[in-house]
């Protein structure tokens, strides 16, 4: 598992849209563009580092107040525009370091900003827009809940630079009062704790794990291949319910989330009693 | 985590189950249920290893006064013998309401 570099988001955003810029009036940390994807015209969204961001705690790839509300705005724009027509896909390209950790952020309710972005993504999904998340790098905690985790389908690269998790290893060790080595040992035996994306894939939350030789410098062929996978994910989402039940119905979930499935079954039975 | 089991003779049929407590730091939860036969079974899961004798002492004392035929499950996160005693008495009180 390698460190966050903050370059992959821009690389893949440019690969799919030919651009790498914010929309007029938006901060430089949020890239938005509409581009062809299969037979659709999709909106692509990506959060990237901006060393000159107004908020000092959101300059290195963190999802902060401005990033979250900009995402919410650009998604709601699509919902509004497509109100009476075909629902365009929305593709979240995800390589985010973490949420922003700052006093200004807490004072100005970053929890609500993050909820606003998730609300926009989730509302778009419920309205029939296929939401696809492509994890090209890091997807941590609150940042991923904000940007990507409300998707119908999640894809990721099977690369050491890709990490989906709730907290960085050192911080997690501190909070759980274990050594980093102990944590590493648990992570090997306990798939949900692992920092390896291949173990994450066992949880049944991913639509697909894709192989790309070097995610920081993909070939044209690889870009077209990943695009085809996005198109496939969109088609798959369009023929499925708009909720997230597919996450519990996957083959892997039936193996690794048996407790979740049992809870759901038993709760329903007891709910209907009496 | 350590798992410890004890059995004690029981005479009295118990009708109601009881649940008390929380598995918080320094606390424990107890699930008490009626059991068949003339035995009281105690199953303990504790995150603090090496105190089997202390558990035995507390339970020996408890069962000198309690003769219900029960299955008692204890989930412990480092409670003191005093807290264990208290929770056992609470569980009995709830089951006999």
């Amino acid at each position: 598992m390698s460190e966050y570099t903050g370059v992959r988001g821009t690389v893949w955003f440019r690969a799919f849209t030919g651009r790498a810029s914010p929309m007029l009036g938006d901060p430089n940390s949020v890239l938005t563009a509409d581009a062809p994807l299969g037979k659709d015209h999709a909106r692509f969204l990506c959060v990237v580092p901006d060393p000159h961001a107004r908020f000092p705690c959101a300059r290195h790839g963190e999802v902060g107040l401005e990033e979250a509300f900009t995402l919410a705005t650009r998604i709601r724009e699509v919902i509004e525009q497509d109100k009476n027509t075909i629902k365009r896909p929305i593709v979240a390209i995800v390589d985010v370091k973490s949420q922003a950790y700052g006093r200004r952020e807490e004072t100005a309710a970053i929890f609500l900003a993050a909820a606003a972005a998730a609300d926009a993504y989730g509302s778009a999904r419920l309205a029939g827009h296929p939401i696809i998340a492509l994890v090209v790098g890091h997807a941590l905690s609150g940042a991923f809940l904000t940007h990507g985790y409300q998707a119908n389908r999640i894809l990721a690269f099977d690369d050491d630079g890709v990490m989906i998790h709730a907290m960085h290893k050192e911080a997690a060790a501190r909070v759980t009062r274990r050594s980093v080595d102990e944590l590493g040992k648990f992570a090997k035996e306990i798939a949900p704790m692992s920092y390896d994306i291949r173990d994450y894939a066992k949880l049944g939350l991913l639509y697909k794990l894709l192989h790309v030789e070097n995610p920081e410098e993909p070939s044209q062929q690889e870009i077209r291949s990943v695009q085809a996978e996005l198109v496939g994910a969109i088609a798959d989402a369009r023929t499925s319910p708009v909720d997230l039940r597919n996450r519990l119905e996957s083959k892997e979930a039936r193996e690794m989330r048996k407790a979740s499935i049992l809870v759901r079954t038993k709760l329903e039975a007891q709910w209907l009693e009496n | 985590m350590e798992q410890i089991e004890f059995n004690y003779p029981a005479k009295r049929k118990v009708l109601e189950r009881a649940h008390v407590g929380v598995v918080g730091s320094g606390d424990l939860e107890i699930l008490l249920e009626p059991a068949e036969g003339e035995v009281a079974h105690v199953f303990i899961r504790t995150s603090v290893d090496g105190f089997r004798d202390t558990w035995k002492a507390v339970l020996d004392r408890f069962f000198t006064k309690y003769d219900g035929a029960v299955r008692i499950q204890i989930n412990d996160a480092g409670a003191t013998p005093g807290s264990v005693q208290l929770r056992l008495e609470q569980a009995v009180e709830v089951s006999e309401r």
Partner: protein
Amino acid sequence: MSNNGHGASFINRQSFIELDARERATALFDPGTSRELLGPFDRMESPWLPMQGITPQADDGCVVMKGKIAGQAAVVVALEGAFQGGSMGEVSGEKMTAALDLACADNEKGMPTSAVILLETGGVRLQEANLGLAAIAELMASILALRKHAPVICLMAGTVGCFGGMSLAAGLASYIVMTREARLGMNGPEVIEQENGVEEFDSSDRALIWAIHGGEQRYVTGLADELVDDDTPQIADAIRHFVSKGVPALHRSSRAALYRNRIEKLDTSGQWDPKEFRACWATNGSNEEKR
């Protein structure tokens, strides 16, 4: 909501904070109408904690109860803050999400059913990491689906507060009810101090913590809908009020334009005095929406 005559003197208060999750949930229902689902005797425990030498709790720290509030069908889901800091694991997360989904299905069958979520939680249970995080994402999806039909009310009483990923769930709520003792924020003071230093947030400064995250600040800045005393009858009354009120015309988390506008106006060159910050945000923003 104005004081409705339930303001209790300090001595007469029945502390809600001192109650455990089960007692808190029970207290919110119309008397005699509630029953617990998947209680401790069903033993739906964490499969992951024993593998790490941690004693599981028989209900995995999550209480689900169904019954009536103000005469209407409601489900209450309460996290037990004393167990693993109320953190979200696979089982506790699924209990909460599945309960909301069942409430949603009842709404769709013509049986209006609200949800009340009692949040004492630090967020993801790190011993279950990615299943805890995924559970929160799924919970958020279920809140979005349910709140179209019936209100989803989040109650934070203290002492744990509501932090981490679960603060996003609170952010999606139809209504937020807080005591002064409670706190709500994405990142706690210790985490911020760890990441960005003591200048950014001195986690030993209790006054600062409540000035930023505390119930009163959140209420006065329009981020919580009701501020209640630590008094069980008053809290139950507030919950009844919001169940009866129904779905709001517009959820707070959907007001992206309003809040984006407010963020754009902020001077980020220095830290803000939380009391001065109140002045910017102490309105309902009806004249602030920008297209």
